[in-house]
């Protein structure tokens, strides 16, 4: 890999007060890749994604996007670089309509793209089109997750971060979410960093993966290597793979 990675973490630390949540993380994502980050609850996966946006800001180390240091860039200037996050817990705007939520995602996009981009989201998630004038807070969990993904896509990101998109979803929705992740990557060439509890699915869809433990990367490899790795099998796959079908 001689090209500049799309995203590169070098020795990144992050704190919440006295809690040391990231302890020198090195990670990179190349253009066109799906990279997954797996790890137990509280390992620091969400923190790693949020630190890209400065929430919390890295207390040491460097985060670069397409070769530019963005470690100290203000939160609101990150997405405009072409990065979008589907955060943990979806965080849709409950008292806005579905359509308004999508409009929020395209606040800084070219208005000329708006119709085509909503069309694309509605084709991907037809239920959102039927519900477009409904308050987002009244949607089911799965529908809210689709809306959060749709909102992120409205800004035409080059890099899409997904934090546990399958959490709490029915198996049917989980299948759909993973199908869409693959489609976005293969058809649209979108680069994706995926955090998942569902390690089996994630490692199947990803080109490469990292295992995070107590704020440190302890293992990395291709999706297949990690799937075959005894440590990963023991810690993250036993029992869970079958349960999630």
């Amino acid at each position, binding site marked *: 890999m001689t090209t500049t990675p799309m995203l590169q973490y070098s020795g990144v630390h992050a704190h919440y007060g006295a809690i040391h949540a990231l302890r020198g993380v090195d990670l990179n994502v190349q253009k066109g890749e799906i990279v997954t980050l797996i790890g137990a609850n509280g390992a620091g996966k969400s923190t790693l994604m949020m630190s890209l946006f400065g929430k919390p800001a890295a207390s040491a180390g460097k985060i670069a996007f397409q070769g530019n240091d963005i470690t100290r860039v203000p939160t609101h200037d990150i997405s405009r670089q072409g990065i979008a996050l589907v955060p943990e817990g979806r965080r849709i705007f409950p008292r806005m309509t579905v359509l308004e939520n999508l409009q929020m995602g395209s*606040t800084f996009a070219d208005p000329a793209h708006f119709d085509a981009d909503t069309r694309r989201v509605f084709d991907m998630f037809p239920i959102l089109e039927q519900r477009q004038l409904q308050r987002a807070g009244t949607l089911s969990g799965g529908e809210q997750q689709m809306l959060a993904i749709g909102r992120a896509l409205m800004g035409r990101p080059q890099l899409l971060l997904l934090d546990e998109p399958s959490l709490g979803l029915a198996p049917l929705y989980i299948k759909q979410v993973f199908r869409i992740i693959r489609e976005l990557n293969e058809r649209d060439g979108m680069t994706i960093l995926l955090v998942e509890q569902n390690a089996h699915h994630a490692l199947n869809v990803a080109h490469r993966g990292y295992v995070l433990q107590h704020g440190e990367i302890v293992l990395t490899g291709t999706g297949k290597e990690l799937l075959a790795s005894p440590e990963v099998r023991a810690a993250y796959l036993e029992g869970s793979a079958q349960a999630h079908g």
Partner: protein
Amino acid sequence: MGQFIQQLINGLTLGAVYGLIALGYTMVYGIIGMINFAHGDIYMVAAIIAVTVLTLLGALGISAVPLAILITLAVVIFFTAIYGWSVERVAYRPLRKASRLAPLISAIGMSIFLQNMVQLTQGARVKPIHAMMPGGFELFTHDGFSVHLAYTQIMIISVTIILLAVFSYLITRTSFGRQQRACEQDQTMTALLGINVDRTISYTFMLGAALAAVAGVMVTVYYGVVDFSIGFVAGIKAFTAAVLGGIGSLPGAMLGGLIIGMIESFWSAYLSPEYKDVATFGILILVLMFRPSGLLGRPEVEKV
């Protein structure tokens, strides 16, 4: 009957003014979860600036009343919005992460500062202007009571309606309005989507101040006298209106304003004018005790 209609007209006029001020309280609360106790004084500053501008325009010989009022509105909105912006910058932003008591105290400090500043620079005496829009229509006479609709009342009610139409378009239909509402619901997520939350909060203070500015100009023209202390009582009444309507709810603020205006007007006419302010405070206490979420407020408390 005549008396009743007359109080309805007076109450509507007062209610329009309280409603416009109440919008500022409710918007600021909606976005940062704080009561801006300096907001009533922002309204007072607007009224004082209005007197100055109107006097100046009179001296310059600009006597066409609609033109003078339009110029005054523009100038007063501009300067009052700057005051609103400054209050946020000086009294709130530095304390964004402090305990909830700190910004409350600094807002009260800001309120005292504004009153003293005006008192020192403008004097403590009431500032009168000559009647700009005297007269009105005599609608009808019933049982020897004639019902009047003053030109100033027509102005206040129609300006308020136009302003509300523009304002609700801004909030519900424009990108700025969506960003403003998004900040109310989830500031972190709004920032993740590329929106500058600090700037949106500043604009919210400015917008609230601008609405109070319009109220200040209209009251100046309506009553013809203002002084440094009018912000306190008007502020508490508008605050009561915002709480009654449901703090955080924009239609609620307007509805609350109308109800408070009506109560004040009918109370003065039928019970006792001396105790009309007591009526308002009584309502505030009752609402806080029995229905703290107000008439149109969301029952669940999201920010504690």
